[in-house]
């Protein structure tokens, strides 16, 4: 019994010693954090990179864009991440935080586009929506249907009430929670645009930006919009179980589940590879990765990882990322971005 | 202290051994009244092993033992009797400081083992308990082998130098406890597998394996059947040759059978002490008489 206790005590001390000695160690793998939308693409590149080169496979954490950039900007030491994935462009405030913590040189690489789709089960009718319809169906307050500029609590119960051409189905939309980048993008690209269809609100934009945002971006809370969690697979499953509802999620999930769900067209454009790539489909956004230049050469393989990400076999129309659902940038743009990435051209702070 | 007259009478009992004559006188004497709570009889002996003076025990606010003074003589069996809750077990447990384990318990007064005050701050309870062994009400062998049960004490106190000596001590203790013949062929079996009487004798063997000077027994037979009880009683009589024994018992016949002196406790008071024969034939205190005649208890 005493021996047992003794050996346990020894083991405990050993672990303690190991813990303290390890803290000082360097790192021989790339550390990537950030957006869950970029995660499937960046992991695919990482895996390819790990197998094709002598470097270790990078470690990729799915933290969400904001959380990722916060970690990325927390300092310039090797214990901070080397690369941040983002489903939106870095904000000015974030660059300032970065600079305050000693991260002054950041390389921005636009890796492609992602489309956000609205889809429903194949069992029911396909929708032809406009952004105005979506604003009217989902905003918390809309201009009164009786006319006039007065805003009233959203009275619409069915799609038909919103727009005569739409089916008489009950409004029920499953979407991600506000913490999600997909939700941010949806609100910015659909709701903001949709509400400018009303002259009175459009006028508000130049007068009172804050008020404008509050009106356009506040989603109704009376059960018509259901926050279904960050897991896009879950939303797809729920659509199957409930054919009357629409779901909001990333294009890659539509691509994988085309036998079960159908996308609604928005402003006359159906979301396809082509319409998103050439910008016709209105709800698409660019995806970025941000690289800490100070770490290039310190952590092995960063330049090579960038080269893999920006290689034609990865991010072109024929590349393996397209197979994962990434919408490639146009060819000319790719060329410029790849060259910039190779030269490690940093973001100029006054660009914003 | 006890009244002078009684002391003189009892001293004569002890010293002159004129028991019959004195008993005849005593029967006619008036009993000490029920409300009188000073000790009747002579609590002291000529050759004491343990000396207790004005011992008080408190459990928190409760005064459990009230000013008890008594001696335990060399190689005698002292029986402590009394109704439930009279404090006899509490007092017994003061003798090897087992009460220390009860957080709220406080002991005042003096208890001397030979010349040593066992409640002195400098006294270590570990060697004390090696000198004053204890056997409990319910047989409580360790869940280990019979051998290990007996060998445990000598091992932790370093009483033996090698395996042979240890074997001798175990064999000797088991023989003294009268258990050797029954278990010599299965020393490696668990002690908990023995019958109740055997378990209690195993516990006695465990206590005497550390060669204590005094053995305290807290109702050692209360969980045993009559046959096992008889065996243990015989054992106690034999052990008296080598050890001083203090036994708490509910069973007055048992006290009469095994002890030389008997102390009667009542609600925390030591009411009467005397030679066992005299206590049972001619109690001087009314409470003692009530108890041994079965008026309460």
């Amino acid at each position: 019994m005493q021996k047992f206790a003794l050996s346990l005590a020894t083991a405990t001390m050993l672990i303690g010693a190991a813990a303290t000695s390890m803290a000082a160690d360097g790192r021989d793998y790339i550390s990537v954090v950030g957006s869950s939308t970029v995660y499937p693409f960046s992991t695919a590149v990482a895996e390819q990179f790990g197998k094709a080169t002598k470097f270790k496979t990078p470690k990729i954490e799915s933290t969400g864009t904001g959380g990722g950039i916060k970690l990325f900007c927390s300092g310039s030491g090797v214990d901070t991440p080397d690369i941040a994935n983002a489903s939106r462009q870095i904000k000015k405030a974030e660059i300032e935080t970065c600079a305050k913590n000693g991260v002054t040189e950041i390389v921005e690489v636009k890796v492609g586009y992602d489309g956000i789709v609205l889809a429903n089960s194949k069992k029911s009718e396909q929708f032809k929506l406009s952004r105005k319809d979506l604003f009217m169906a989902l905003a918390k307050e809309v201009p009164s249907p009786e006319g006039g500029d007065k805003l009233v609590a959203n009275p619409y119960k069915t799609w038909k009430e919103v727009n005569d051409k739409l089916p008489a189905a009950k409004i029920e939309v499953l979407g991600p929670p506000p913490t999600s980048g997909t939700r941010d993008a949806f609100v910015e690209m659909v709701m903001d645009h949709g509400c400018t269809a009303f002259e009175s609100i459009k006028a508000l934009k130049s007068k009172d930006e804050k008020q404008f945002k509050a009106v356009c971006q506040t989603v109704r809370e009376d059960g018509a919009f259901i926050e279904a969690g960050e897991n896009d697979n879950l939303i797809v499953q729920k659509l199957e179980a409930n054919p009357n509802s629409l779901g909001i999620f990333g294009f890659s999930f539509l691509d994988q589940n085309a036998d079960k769900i159908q996308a609604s067209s928005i402003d006359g454009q159906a979301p396809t590879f082509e319409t998103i790539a050439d910008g016709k489909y209105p709800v698409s956004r660019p995806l970025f990765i941000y690289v800490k230049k100070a770490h290039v050469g310190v952590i092995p393989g960063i330049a090579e990882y960038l080269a893999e990400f920006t290689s034609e076999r990865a991010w072109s129309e024929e590349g393996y990322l397209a197979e994962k659902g990434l919408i490639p940038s146009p060819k000319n743009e790719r060329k410029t971005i790849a060259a910039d990435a190779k030269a490690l051209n940093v973001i100029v702070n006054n660009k914003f | 202290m006890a009244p002078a007259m009684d002391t003189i009478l009892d001293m004569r009992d002890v010293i002159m051994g004129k028991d019959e004559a004195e008993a005849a006188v005593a029967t006619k004497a008036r009993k000490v009244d029920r409300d009188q709570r000073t000790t009747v009889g002579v609590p002291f002996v000529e050759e004491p092993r343990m000396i207790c003076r004005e011992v008080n025990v408190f459990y928190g606010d409760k005064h459990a033992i009230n000013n008890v003074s008594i001696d335990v003589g060399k190689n005698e069996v002292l029986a402590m009797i009394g109704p439930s809750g009279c404090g006899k077990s509490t007092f017994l447990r003061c003798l090897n400081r087992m009460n220390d384990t009860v957080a709220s318990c406080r002991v005042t007064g003096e208890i001397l083992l030979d010349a040593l005050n066992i409640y002195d701050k400098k006294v270590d309870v570990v060697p004390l308990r090696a000198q004053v062994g204890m056997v409990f009400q319910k047989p409580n062998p360790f869940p280990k082998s019979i051998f290990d049960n007996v060998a445990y004490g000598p091992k932790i106190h370093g009483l033996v130098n090698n395996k042979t000596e240890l074997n001798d001590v175990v064999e000797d203790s088991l023989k003294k406890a009268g258990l050797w013949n029954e278990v010599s062929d299965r020393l490696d079996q668990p002690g908990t597998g023995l019958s109740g009487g055997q378990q209690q004798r195993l516990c006695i063997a465990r206590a005497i394996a550390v060669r204590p000077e005094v053995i305290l027994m807290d109702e050692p037979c209360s969980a045993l059947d009559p046959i096992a009880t008889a065996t243990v009683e015989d054992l106690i009589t034999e052990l008296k040759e080598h050890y001083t024994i203090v036994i708490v018992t509910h069973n007055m016949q048992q006290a009469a059978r095994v002890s030389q002196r008997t102390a009667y406790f009542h609600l925390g008071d030591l009411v009467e002490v005397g030679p066992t024969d005299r206590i049972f034939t001619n109690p001087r205190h009314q409470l003692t008489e009530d108890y041994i005649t079965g008026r309460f208890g």
Partner: protein
Amino acid sequence: MSENHQISTMDRVSVGLAARYRKERRFRLFGISAIVASLLFLALLLASITAKGYTAFRQTEVLLDVYLDPAVLDVHNLATANYAALVRDAALALFSQVESRQDKRIIGKLISTGAAYRLQDLVTSKPELIGSTRPIWVPADDEVDMFVKGHIPRDVPEAERRVSDKQASWIDQLVAADRLKLKFNTAFFQAGDSREPELAGIRGAAAGSMFTLAITLLLSFPVGVAAAVYLEEFAPKNRWTDLIEVNINNLAAIPSIVFGLLGLAVFLNFMNLPRSASLVGGLVLTLMTLPTIIIASRASLKSVPPSIREAALGVGASKMQTISHHILPLAMPGMMTGAIIGMARALGETAPLLMIGMVAFIVDVPNSFSDPATVLPVQIFLWADSPERAFVERTSAAIMILLLLLLAMNAAAVFLRNKFERRW
């Protein structure tokens, strides 16, 4: 009069008796229905997971006759040779009638990218094979796998499934030629994570779980037992120890994410330990498991009968001897049960690991406590969120493995309790 009185008493008793028994029957009925309901839900859960997941243990493989072309391979370039080209050539050789470049590209995609690595392993271990033609089973692409397993239906319009009619007919050809079969999915047990479902395995996550739990056990058990022994045996009973006891009970009920935040602040930001390492995961889970172990250990110390304590003290054992020779061995089975249940809870934790970077894509199987690692439940979480349909069955399969591990741990707890529990 007295007779009448007696009869009426008996009558009254028997009237009440019926009600009393009815009450008892009703209670039993409630109990049984509660148990039946929970068993039903359990069965439903297990059945749905098994039904979804069992197919993941088999993987579609294709038999290719690969010509190990000496022009492509020689002993010096084994690490960098173009194995993918060899695989593609071998696949094309199966369909000699196909002409168009487009079709050739699609045929190449029937085979997993993992085929090239399998070929590389073969050639690296047996370089003498170069120049010969070898029949070799290679994994098929995940979409072929899904199609063969029936997860991609044939009866929907072609445009709506990821396997075209042409691909389907080729797959049928391969099946007819006995060149396409479902084989035991070794990659699932031997590989780390991957973005290609057919190459993804749970070994990395399992190793991460193992390292993490090892740290948790080594730290939380001795510390927990020591704390319990001190509190139960040595500490004075006063307001401070009461406060500590209340706090320990509170800690046991705190949501685990809070421990993750604590770990982030203390181990990563203050002590500068590496992110995503199983060491830190173990430390965080230790914090989470400690209260459970302390509570279980104290309960089992309390359950040691006082007679044993008295026996040891009575022979003259010191307090420490009494505890280490008698109390601890008797309390040990209970403590171990508590520890295993705590470990099982730690095995299933995801939330606290999120904060310390263990929710990450990690391909390499971790080899030490400081390597970046993830754990089984996190792997399940990551796969469940992946768009590829083949990850659905792998998610369920990983859940089955996790449940088996949990079952094994709980069985071990029961076994230990029965084996070492002593009677007195």
